[in-house]
Structures are given as structure tokens and as C-alpha cells.
């Protein structure tokens, strides 16, 4: 899959607020990410990094511009199509893990595979991921009993359970110590090695070093 553009963004615009309080955080942003590539996006707080990621994953809607993810036109999609996009083509990794506190680590991973329309082999794949990521000994533990690194590894397994073409990671190491952060970056790299496009938003230079390309979001554009 190397060499094929999995994410293509053209002229993306997103404004928050109205009137004099309006702030255009993305102002004609362009981006292309190839399959198997890890792209790190740097930028100051409030520069629009997370917003860009949310738009790529169909969590939010752009004011203008086009987004194509794994062959799907995201900018013109309705809510049902966006759900399908998030279900099968995109996986999210968040800074604060977002594991459901009622469920064990394994149940959190398998949860994404239980959504209607999920990958038919999601459950088996989830168990493989848990084994592969060395999480089996703590698979039955609740999130409150897991370390930050373990929680983020479960979150990565959850993001991969439906075998998405694109992995979107929002400050995945922001809440981890150096060692755990390095392990998470290694896993993201491994994800890309499997043919995925990985977009990593971070403000840490060290994290960016794990990427194939580093872009900086400045005044609404990637440079």
C-alpha cells in the first residue's frame, strides 16, 4: 500500500466563534498522507492540531475544503456515512485514553468490534492485539487498576480492532512518562508498518522524531 495517498486534504477551513470573536484555526490547510507513512503535526497550543485531526476522522465538520480518507469523501458525508468511516476506516488514539471505567481492558478493546457494521473478525483480532501488545496478564483489570502506559496500549488496540486504514493519534504520549511514551510511539510505527497511514498530533519534539515527516501547523496552514 506504500505510495498510495490514504489521506488527502485540500483548502481546509475551520472557524470557531462568530463575529468579532471568530477565530479561523484552519485557513486553507493542505495535507497528503501515504499508506504506511507516519506524519507528525506539531504546533503550539490552540494552533488547530486537534481540530485538524477531528476533521480527518469525521468527528467534526469543516467550513470549507475537501477531505478524502481511504477513498471516501469525508467533507460531503452525512452522519451515517461518517459513522461508517469511523467504524471501519479510521482508528482514534486519545491523550486521555478514554477507556470506559466500568469495563475491563479487554472489554474496552472488544467494544469497538461490537458496533454494528464492525469488522467481522474484530473480536478475534482484538484478542490477538491484546496478546501481541503484552496485555494479556492485565486484560481482566479495570482501567482504574492499570498504569497510564497500559491504558494507552489498550486504547491503541481498540483503535486497531477494526483494522482501519488510518490511525489518528491526538497527543498519545502527552500523559505518559518517557518510557511508556516510547512504547506507544513504537506501536504507532508498527501500525504504519502494517500499511496504515498514521497522523500523529503532538507538541513534543521527541515524539515527532518517530515520524517519517514532520509538519508544523502555523496560522492555519501546514508548513
Amino acid at each position, binding site marked *: 500500500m506504500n505510495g498510495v495517498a490514504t489521506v488527502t486534504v485540500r483548502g481546509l477551513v475551520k472557524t470557531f466563534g462568530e463575529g468579532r470573536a471568530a477565530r479561523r484555526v484552519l485557513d486553507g490547510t493542505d495535507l497528503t498522507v501515504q499508506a504506511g507513512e507516519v506524519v507528525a503535526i506539531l504546533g503550539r497550543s490552540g494552533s488547530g492540531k486537534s481540530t485538524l485531526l477531528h476533521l480527518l476522522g469525521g468527528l467534526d465538520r469543516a467550513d470549507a475544503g475537501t477531505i478524502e480518507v481511504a477513498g471516501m469523501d469525508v467533507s460531503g458525508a452525512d*452522519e451515517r456515512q461518517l*459513522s*461508517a468511516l*469511523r467504524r*471501519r476506516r479510521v482508528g*482514534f488514539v486519545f491523550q486521555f485514553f*478514554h477507556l*470506559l471505567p466500568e*469495563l475491563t481492558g479487554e472489554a474496552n478493546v472488544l467494544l469497538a468490534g461490537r458496533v454494528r457494521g464492525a469488522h467481522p473478525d474484530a473480536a478475534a483480532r482484538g484478542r490477538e492485539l491484546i496478546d501481541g501488545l503484552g496485555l494479556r496478564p492485565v486484560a481482566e483489570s479495570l482501567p482504574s487498576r492499570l498504569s497510564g502506559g497500559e491504558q494507552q496500549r489498550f486504547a491503541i488496540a481498540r483503535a486497531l480492532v477494526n483494522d482501519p486504514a488510518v490511525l489518528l493519534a491526538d497527543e498519545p504520549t502527552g500523559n505518559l512518562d518517557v518510557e511508556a511514551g516510547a512504547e506507544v510511539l513504537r506501536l504507532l510505527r508498527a501500525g504504519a508498518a502494517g500499511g496504515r497511514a498514521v497522523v500523529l498530533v503532538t507538541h513534543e519534539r521527541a515524539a515527532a522524531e518517530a515520524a517519517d515527516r514532520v509538519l508544523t501547523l502555523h496560522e492555519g496552514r501546514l508548513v
Partner: protein
Amino acid sequence: MIALALAGLRARRSRTLLAALGVLAASLVVGTGVSVGYALATGFERAAEQADLPDIVARFDDTGTEPLDERVRALPNLAARSYRFERTNIPLTANGHHTHQGAFHVLLGDRRGYLVAEGRDLSGRPGEVVAEQGLAREWGLRVGDTIDVGRAGALRLVGIAVSPDNVAYPLARAARVYLPDVYGADTPANLALLWLNDPTKADVTLTQARSVSFGLGRLEFVTRDGVKVLLGQAAGIVISLLVAFSLVALVAAGTMLAAGAHADVQRRLAALGVQRALGFSPARIAGLQATEAALLSLPAAAAGIAIGALVVAGPSAALLASLNERPPGWALLGPLALALAAVTVIVVAAATWPAWRAARRPPAAILRGGDVDPRSGGRAPGGSFAVLGARFATAARARWAATVATIAVCAGVVTLMLALASLLERLRDDPGTVGKRYQLTVPLDASLAGRVDDVPGVAGVAPRYTADAADSYRLGEPLRLVAFPGDHTRLEAPPLAAGRRLSGPGEIEVGLGLADALGLRPGSTFAVQLPGGTEARFRVAGVVRALENDGRIGWVRPTRLLDDDPDLRPSLAVRLEGGADRDAVTRELVALGAPPQSASAATTRNAQFLGVLASVLRGVGLAVGLVCLYALVQALAVTARERRGAVALLRACGGDAGTVARVLLGAATAVALPGAVLGVVLELTVMGPVVAHLAAGFASLPIAPGPGQVVLVVAGLLALAAVATALVARRVLREPVVVGLREG
């Protein structure tokens, strides 16, 4: 503080609106309950005062007024007196309507004992008539219309009167009109209206009246208090139900508002912690919360109570009119103001308490607990998002228990309303409800019982004698005697409450209502004044739970009744075989010479009223169902708000509207299903028996829901859970996923 509170309410506009709607809905119910309850509870006294109702009404055979007045004016404690001459079963015709059950009262004194509600009173000139309000309403009569009153002929209607000594026509059997005395001194009297100086000493006057009544036939006394008790029995059940209903609504609203306030405080803990760190005192924080709650609840409660009062003003006035009672008018404002104060205090307390409790913790502790922290459950749900939703709902256990309790009480009330409505209809239509095992009565001679018994489809037949009598000890407490030769339980078997069945002509089974009134128990001796004037004494064999005639009834063998009146004619009570063709049996009985009549249930005379009451109860059940819906929506909205991060995560993982709906439906079902089951159990074990006792402690009222009603309540609550799910899911799905993720 008010400006700050207003700003806080504006900032949470949609939640404020939802909470205000909840307060408005609960207040609407409270306004309804207070309006009808107060109107019914005070309607009789109000009407009695306005109508100058006498303290005692004595009925007797026709007597000349002069000798009568000699005795009456000598009575002790007497303030005023008036007489009437009453004739019943008079044909009345007006406005295209006709009845043979009219009654006219010729007024033989100046003091009336009724209130002229429209038009004017009789002037004393012939040709005038005043009609009772129920008759005028039922027949659409207006002042100036003409009524044909038996032999008195066509009379001009000059006024419409309210007389609270009885319920209005057609609830009352007789359609009553008042005529002037145009016969002079020749007109006899058969009614005496007595006003007392001290109504609390009516017993002294009654005892003396009894002692000087020699020569007066069929003397009966009715006191103002007695009328009030009789009317109160009819209104009492409605009042108690409305009060219970209002309390349920208040408790439900209070619980849900407290739960909502608690969740709100949980979400705002960080802000509270910052306020405390900046030097705000717990009292100021609680005060701010109380001000917000008061600003929200006062207008909402006022609007709800006002709407509730207005909504029931018409039906309440109609109900009062049918009972010949008067609406409260402006006097209702006092109770409504009290209700407004009560609702506001409850809402303010429910909203303030969680903030006060939280704000009293050290600021650092509040800041540490700034995030919502739902309790962890345990292992993963078995693959179902509905189970996950149920786990969300039950995570905050105290709130879940409070919501389930609210739903259970509401479901119990709904079940009770449905069961009561069915009971009322059965009382109206099904003689089996009052222990009658026969379906038909035939006005044939007892000697024809054998021929009736031979009719195909007839399982049993026996002559049934009835007589209206009075007890000999308590100033003529009226009662009905029913007599069957032999074992009466084959055809009529009210449940035995104490003692045993009667076994001979000297024994009686008395209704619990009569036993309670006269202090009778098995083994007591009961002396009865029979219609023919003789006194019979019976030994009480048993006490039975009988509904007929308000429990003032007794079952005996016919021997003593026939001794008193050898001409007493029974009707034949006919019991049909199971599955018998009723029409075919009827045809056979008609061929024998008498058309059969259906056996009457408890109150055939009031069939129309019972039908209306059943509809009202079903309507009340529907309204309580709406309270259930509000409670479900509120609980679900709080859960969804609290777990918006989890819901957003599901959506980020590709969960669509169906996934979100399944989660929310699971959460709603986790509240609705146990609530429904507990509600039915509550009705069966507590509400039903209590209401049955309140309504008719003298009888066995079967206020148990049928299987269909239980299914209806459970299915209805699950349907409401689905509606609540749809409403909340719609709101949740409108929110961008990222908003939930930021908070989660």
C-alpha cells in the same frame, strides 16, 4: 446574588428549561389535586351555609300543620322551623323531557333551606315553580320556561335552586321542584325542617322529638351531619386519590429535581472548588444555588398550579354541581398559595442540599473530585450495548434507587387507577362483584319457582324477599333485609368477616357497615323495626363484607318478614348455568309470564356517575403516566449528560444512532422495568388494600389488577422508556462528538 443566579440559569439555558418544565408538570398535578380536593372537601359546608340547610329534617306521614307545629315548637334547642308537603312519583314534563319520578315540595313556611342560584324565589302566587339545579341542567331548562307538574299543570319556572340535602338529579332518583302553598291551611305536612340554636346538641333535640312523635307514622330523621357523611363517602375516595396523586407527583418531582441538582453539582464541582478557593463561603454557594432554584421554581410552579386549577375548574364545578355543592371561588386562592409555597420549598431544598453538602468539603477535596466519577462495575457486559447502558444507569446507585422508587410509585398509582376503573365498571355491571351468584330476577310468584328451575340453562332458583327496615335502638338507622328460604349462599354469598352463616329464622348475618355503625358482633342481639310496624329480634350469627346499601344490610330467613307482612312478595332470583344462552332463558321466562331483569350490582342508580368516575380515573392514570415519562426523561438525560464522554467515545468508534439508542434504551429499561414490577407489587400489597379500606372498609373491594392491566402497565412503561430514549437520543446525537470527548 440574584444577578449571579440569573446569569447561571441563562448559561445553562436548556437544562434550566427542562427543570422548569419538570416543576411546571409537577405543579400542574398539584394544582389539579388541591383545586378538586379543596372544592370537594369544603363544598358541602359551603353549600349548606349558602342554602341555609336545616340541622335536622324529619320525614313522616301526612299530618296537619297546626297539631304538628304545637309539638315541634316545644322542642328544646330549636331556633326556627319550617314545613313542607312532599309528593313523589309525580310526572314531570318540560323541554321535550319527561319523567314519572318527579317530586314536588310545597313550601309551608318562610325559611326555605335551599339556595336560589338563578332567577328568583317563589313569590307565593300560584303558577310559579322553582326547579332543582340538576333537573334544570339535565333538561336544559331556563328561567321563564314552562314545566308540567302532575295535576298542578303547566307552571312557569321562576328560579333554579341548589339544595345540598341530597345529590342532584339524575344522581338523585327524583327530579325535584318547589311549589308555593296555594291550598292554605288545608295542606298537610310530611317534612319538618328544623334549625337549632346549638347544632352540636342535635342529639338532645332528636331524643325529645322521638319521645313526642307518638302518632306520627314512618318517622325518619336526617341530620345535616348525616347528609355530610353520606356525601363525604362518595367524595372521600376521590379526595384521597387526588391527594395521593398530588403527593406522588410532588415526591416524583422532588426526587428527580434532587437527582438533577446532585448531578449538576457533581459536574460543577471544579467550579465550586475554585469558588471556595477564592473565598466564597459554603453558605454563599448554597445561597446562590437556592436563589437559582427559587428563581426557576417560583414562576414555573405558579404557572403549573394556575394551569392545573384552570384545567379542572370546569370538571370540578360540574362534579360539585352533581353533588349539589358550591365551588370555592376566591377561597381557593389560599390553598393554592400554600401549594405554591410547598412546591417552591421542596424544589429549593432539593436543589440546595447537594451544593451545601459539597461546598462544606475543603476546597482541595472539591477540586480533586472535580470530574464525574461513575462507579466501576466489574466484568464486561455480555456483548450488548443495552447492558452497558443499564450499567451506566445503575452506576450511581442512590440515584438509580430513587428513580426506580419514583417510577414504582407512579406505576403503582397507574395500576391502582386502572384496577379501580375496572372495579367501578364491574360494580356497575357485574352483580358477581357484590357477591350475587344469580344473574336474573323475575317478578313471578314463588309457587312458579319449580317451573323456572325447569327452564334449560337455569342452574338454580329461589324466592328473594327484601324489606327496608330500621334498627330499634339508634333512632331508626335504616337498613335493608334480604331473605331466602334455606341456604342463601347458593344465590348470594358476601364474604364472611366474622362468625358463621345463619342457620335458622332467629339468626341474621349483618353487613360490616351496619355492624360498625351499631357495634354488632357475632352473638349480639339485633332488634329491627320491620316495615309493617312490628319489631323482630335476631341473634347475629355472622358479619359479612357487603357492599350493597353501603353495608347497611342483613340476611335472614323470610319467616319473620312474612309474619310482619304476609303480603310481602318476593322476586325469583335465577342463577344461570355456565355458558347458558341468556337470551334463550329470557325468552322462556317471558313465556312464563314475566320479563326477567338483570340482577343489579352495587349502585345501579349511579351507573352514569360510576362510568364518568371510571373515565376520570383512567385519565388520572394517563396523567401519572406522563409523570413517569418525565421522570424517565430526566433520569436518562442526567445519565446521558454524566456519561457523554462514554457516548462520544462509542460514536468515535463508529457507533451510529442505533448504537447510542441501544445504550440509552438499556439505561431507561434498567429504571423502567424494576419500577414497573415494583409498582405492581406495591399496588397489590399496599395501595390496593389501603384504598379498598378507605373507600369501603365494610366490604371486600377486589382492587387487584387483572393480568391484562399488569401487562399494560409494564408494556406501557417500557414504551415510555422507548419514548424517553428517542427524546434523549435525539438531543445526544445533535451534539458534536468532539464536545463529548473533551468532557469525557
